[in-house]
């Protein structure tokens, strides 16, 4: 029994291929039999992944979902930023330059608008919950931008570690919601062309959320959304601890 486990652990990346393969197979089965294909297989697979991550988290008490279970540690490599970035770049192969150019303006506008919008909404919720220290409000707003901008801005302006933890949680909620709800809204918001995909990437920004959300809607749109989303965290890290913090500081 132990040697069986050992093989799975020493070959953890291969075990991860099998795990993800089975998850995707099961997901497409559910998609076809239970939803008549209306809910796309990859969307179901992503939700299944999140459910597994939840149960793994309660089981191990760790922060890395199923990757904290020894035999599934390979999922951490397969789903880590190295291979994710590599695959995202690969999706650009064959993407259309002129589509990118013609939606460039809308993409850049949505990028700045998106950061300010998410920040403001996060800040409003923080104020509604009784926070009145500009540092706290800014940090929670920053977390709502993405879970990277939260801690980066929080430590830059000297917020407490509890508030930084909250800001990370807000960013995680956003990222997971974008992953799961994008397929539900895609039709209604016209997310079916390169331009709206670029606007989507610029408004949502969360790399993992945009990557998963578009994958579940139409893989052809991935490069366009990923293109703007890749600048989002950077714009957030630039704007939040500087201009936006000063504005909040003036108001409180």
């Amino acid at each position: 029994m132990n040697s069986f486990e050992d093989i799975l652990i020493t070959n953890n990346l291969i075990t991860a291929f099998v795990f993800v393969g089975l998850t995707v197979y099961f997901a497409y089965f559910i998609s076809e039999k239970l939803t008549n294909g209306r809910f796309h297989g990859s969307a179901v697979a992503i939700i299944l992944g999140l459910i597994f991550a939840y149960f793994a988290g309660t089981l191990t008490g760790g922060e890395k979902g199923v990757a904290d279970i020894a035999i599934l540690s390979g999922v951490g490599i397969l789903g880590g930023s190295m291979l994710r970035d590599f695959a995202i770049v690969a999706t650009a192969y064959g993407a259309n330059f002129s589509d990118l150019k013609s939606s460039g303006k809308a993409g850049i506008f949505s990028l700045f608008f998106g950061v300010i919008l998410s920040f403001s909404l996060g800040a409003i919720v923080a104020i509604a919950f009784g926070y009145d220290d500009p540092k706290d409000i800014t940090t929670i707003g920053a977390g709502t931008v993405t879970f990277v901008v939260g801690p980066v801005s929080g430590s830059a302006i000297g917020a407490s570690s509890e508030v930084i933890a909250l800001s990370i949680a807000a960013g995680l909620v956003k990222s997971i919601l974008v992953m799961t709800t994008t397929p539900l809204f895609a039709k209604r918001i016209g997310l079916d062309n390169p331009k709206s995909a670029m606007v989507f990437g610029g408004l949502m920004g969360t790399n993992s959320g945009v990557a998963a959300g578009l994958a579940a809607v139409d893989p052809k749109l991935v490069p366009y959304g990923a293109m703007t989303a890749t600048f989002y965290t950077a714009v957030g890290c630039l704007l939040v601890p500087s201009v936006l913090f000063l504005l909040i500081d003036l108001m409180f």
Partner: protein
Amino acid sequence: MVIYGIALLGICTLIGLIAGQLLGSWFGIDANVGGIGIAMLLLMYFSNTSNAHFKIGDMSEKGITFWSMIYIPIVVAMASKQNVIGAIDGGLMALLAGIFAVLVSFIFIPIISNFEKNK
């Protein structure tokens, strides 16, 4: 050869990430500024160029398209390693902030996408 495609993809990714890191340090922030975007632009440039000196062959192309097709399984793996508990444990405020931001952003997608069309 298949490895040429993978290597080209690797070159684009690494150049992009290095450029993104440099941009980040210029702006004085500890984050990669658009590295992936730069890498994607590079790859698009190569995929749209074809001349006597440079052409991506059929086999090399397979090295790139494989990775682009394996993208969704990678995203599934990424979902499986999220800190879902952390998101739920953040409490009502974190939950509301996230929900609010996502819903309102969704509303703005068609508005911004259609903005230029109507002008």
